[in-house]
């Protein structure tokens, strides 16, 4: 029997109740497993469920908390991992046929950190094959479905994470974002997805897509949970040469400070072009809310941002194709059609073109640094549209791509979050993107939290609310 109020609870609230011993981790994990059994046959969000080990870990957490050995605010909270993070002794497929039998010997460093924080791994979540796409219509493990409308995609590549959170199957998830793969599913599934600053969270034991664009970050149902999860996984690691060499920070400290005194930049061009009308209205209302809460707003110009998507595409294609070259040479037929086609392009991009793309990357970084001298954060729609039906073709053309507002922040490495900001006329969630200065996740989270507190959100998709 599943307990809907428990499923809808934030991880932070759950952690507080677990610490007070009002709840047992065993009860919480059993509830999540019951919900997975009940709802996931419709969603296909989990590729592997590790029920026995989750219950064993829950019993350990229960004993530790009872003995006064409390590990922190997430101790005993269940979580699902995108199936791209190495997990010791547990199959890690990256959503591919090629790695169907891959069983890592050790946990990725971020997974080690999550276990040290006392979170309990429920299993591994569906994703777009090799994280190279935005629908999670996976040809090898079946399509993952959006809990808000089962005929629509949950976004991707971390689509299983977005779907599982929206259905209350887990309370936390960890995703990856190379061009929007955390923020797309957060936006279309009505969740919170934070792409931290590049280098903030180490990527060892995470299958790469594009080394210079890949980010690891939290996916949750509320902003406080995202801050707590970031606290648990941030910090340098020798296994990632590009991880940031600095100490950990408390990303929860400023959450409730509100937005009074902050300046919100509304960037142009690009970010408000070609929107579905409901998306445009929801974003405008969200900006009004932030103004009403005391923020000032100003239009800011990002002169060359429209060059960004093509540069991003060239870098992504080149780096992904380099990583996949051995498998593309030996067993190309084992890739899904869309990923194979995307990978093939990268073999024909000259090094000169790749370097020109990286020149554009630095241009955009420099321009954004200038913008952030006049604004504390930027606010944009996360996506120009809500979730498309499963099977609808997704364009990678720069003016058509539905990730065109997200990828510029992968190029710049800036932190960016998607938070829910309403639904369209079909009842499908809309996401608002808030981006900040490098290493200023605290302000991004603070603005997101101020908006969330004012706006409210039902947290679970209708199918999962009973």
């Amino acid at each position: 029997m599943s307990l809907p109020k428990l499923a809808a609870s934030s991880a932070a609230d759950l952690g507080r109740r677990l610490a007070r011993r009002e709840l047992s981790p065993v009860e919480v994990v059993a509830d999540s497993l019951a919900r997975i059994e009940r709802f996931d046959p419709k969603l296909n969000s989990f590729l592997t469920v590790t029920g026995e080990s989750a219950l064993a870990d829950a019993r350990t957490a229960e004993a530790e908390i009872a003995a006064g050995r409390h590990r922190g605010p997430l101790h005993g909270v269940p979580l699902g991992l995108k199936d791209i993070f190495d997990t010791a002794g547990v199959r890690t497929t990256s959503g591919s046929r090629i790695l169907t039998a891959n069983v890592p010997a050790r946990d990725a460093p971020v997974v080690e950190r999550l276990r040290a924080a006392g979170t309990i791994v429920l299993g591994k979540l569906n994703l777009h094959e090799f994280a190279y796409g935005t629908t999670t219509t996976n040809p090898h493990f079946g399509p993952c479905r959006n809990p808000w409308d089962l005929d629509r995609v949950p976004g991707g590549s971390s689509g299983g994470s977005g779907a599982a959170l929206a259905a209350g199957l887990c309370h936390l998830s960890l995703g990856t974002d190379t061009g929007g793969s955390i923020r797309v599913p957060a936006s279309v599934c009505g969740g919170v997805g934070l792409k931290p600053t590049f280098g903030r969270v180490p990527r060892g034991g995470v299958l790469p897509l594009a080394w210079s664009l890949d980010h690891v970050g939290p996916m949750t149902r509320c902003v406080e949970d995202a801050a707590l999860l970031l606290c648990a996984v941030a910090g340098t690691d020798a296994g990632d040469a590009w991880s940031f060499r600095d100490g950990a920070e408390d990303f929860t400290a400023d959450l409730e400070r509100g937005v009074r005194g902050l300046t919100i930049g509304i960037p142009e061009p690009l970010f408000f072009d070609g929107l579905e009308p409901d998306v445009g209205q929801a974003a405008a209302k969200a900006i009004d809310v932030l103004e009403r809460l005391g923020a000032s707003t100003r239009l800011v110009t990002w002169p060359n941002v429209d060059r960004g998507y093509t540069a991003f595409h060239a870098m992504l294609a080149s780096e992904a194709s380099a990583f996949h070259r051995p498998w593309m040479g030996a067993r190309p037929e084992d890739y899904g059609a869309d990923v194979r086609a995307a990978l093939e392009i990268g073999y024909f991009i000259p090094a000169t073109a790749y370097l020109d793309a990286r020149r554009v990357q630095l241009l955009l970084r420099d321009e954004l640094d200038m913008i952030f001298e006049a604004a504390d954060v930027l606010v944009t729609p996360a996506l120009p549209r809500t979730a498309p039906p499963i099977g609808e073709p997704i364009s990678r053309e720069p003016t058509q791509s539905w990730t065109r507002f997200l990828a510029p922040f992968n190029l710049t490495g800036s932190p960016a979050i998607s938070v829910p900001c309403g639904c369209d006329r079909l009842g499908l969630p809309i996401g608002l993107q808030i981006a900040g200065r490098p290493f200023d996740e605290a302000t991004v989270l603070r603005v997101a939290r101020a908006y969330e507190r004012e706006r409210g959100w039902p947290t679970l998709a209708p199918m999962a609310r009973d």
Partner: protein
Amino acid sequence: MERTPHMSIEVLIEIARQQGIGLDAARALDLRARVESLLARLARVTDGLERGRQPAPGGPPRRPT
């Protein structure tokens, strides 16, 4: 307007072969249009970049002071 000649299918197949990637003529034909489109777009967006503009370094962005 002068039309840019297409890349040769044979050359595409040879470039792929040198990288260990098998490519038949049908796939190469489909791929050619996508490659040409991306490279043309990239040429447009990098056109006019100032001469002193360097590539972005690897690693995290600069932390504001």
